[in-house]
C-alpha cells in the first residue's frame, strides 16, 4: 500500500515546495480546495480583505509539516493550519489543512 501511495504521488501529485526554518524541499503532493457551501472565499476585516478558503494537503510520510511550515503551490504560499501524520501501518502520509498566506509587507 505504501508503495502504491508513492506511485500515486509520483504520477498524479502536484509539485510543491516546503519551506521550514531556512530549509527548502521540493516534492509531490496532492493539494485540493476544501469545498464549502457556506463561507465566502474572501471577507473584509479590519486589516483588509482576507482569504478564508482552505486547502487539503496529502503528502509523503517522509516529509513532515508543522505550523511553521510554508507550502508553496502554484506560485502562492500557504500556511499550515493543522497537520497530522496518519495511516500508520497501512499507508502513512501527512495530512494537513492549509490557508493562503497574507501578502508579506515589504
Amino acid at each position, binding site marked *: 500500500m505504501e508503495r502504491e501511495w508513492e506511485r500515486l504521488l509520483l504520477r498524479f501529485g502536484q509539485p510543491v515546495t516546503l519551506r521550514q526554518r531556512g530549509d527548502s524541499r521540493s516534492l509531490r503532493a496532492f493539494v485540493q480546495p476544501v469545498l464549502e457551501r457556506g463561507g465566502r472565499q474572501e471577507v473584509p476585516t479590519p486589516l483588509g480583505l482576507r482569504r478564508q478558503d482552505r486547502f487539503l494537503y496529502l503528502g509523503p510520510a517522509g516529509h513532515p509539516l508543522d505550523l511553521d511550515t510554508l507550502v508553496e503551490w502554484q506560485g502562492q504560499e500557504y500556511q499550515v493550519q493543522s497537520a497530522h501524520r496518519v495511516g500508520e501501518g497501512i499507508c502513512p502520509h501527512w495530512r494537513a489543512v492549509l490557508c493562503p498566506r497574507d501578502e508579506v*509587507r515589504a
Partner: protein
Amino acid sequence: MNTGLEQIRQTMADYLCQQGVPAVTAWPAAPRQEWTEPVVVVSVRGCRAGSASFQDYLGERYDERSGRWEERYGKRAQLTLGLDIYAPEREDGEAVQSAFDALAGVLVLGGPEGLDLQEFSCGQTAWDGESRRLKRPVEAVCTAWLCAVTDAGGVFVDFELRGVRKE
C-alpha cells in the same frame, strides 16, 4: 459639504506613524498584509456631536486673508477611536505589551492637531480567531470642534476640525 470627520482615522494613523508607532486605518479594500511587527489599526467606534451654543453660534472672527468679519458656527463632537493592536499570532504577548507601551507613551502626550484626547483604555490581549492575530483592544476618547464659517452670502462652507487643546 465636508463634515470635518472624513479624514479623522487617517489623521490619527499619520500622527501615530510620525511618532514612531506603526498604524493603519481599518477596513481597507485591499488584501490584508502580513505584518512582522505589531500594528495599530485605527477605526471610529463612535461619534456623538451636539450643539455647543445657542443655534451653534460661536461668534465672529476677523479673517485677515479675506479682510472681512466672518460668522462661525460649530458643534462639539466626542469621538471614540478604536486603536486596536494586532500582532502576528506566532508572537508572544510581550510584543503586544511593548506596542501598547509605545502607543500609551504617545497618547499621554496628546493627539493630533484638532483632537483633544480625553482618555484612553485597553483590554487584555487575546488570540483573535477571526483575524488569526493576537489582538489587544484599545480605544481613545477625544473631543473636537467641528467649525464652519458662512461666506459673504450667508451660506455655510465646509466644516473643519478644530481642537480645544491649548498649546
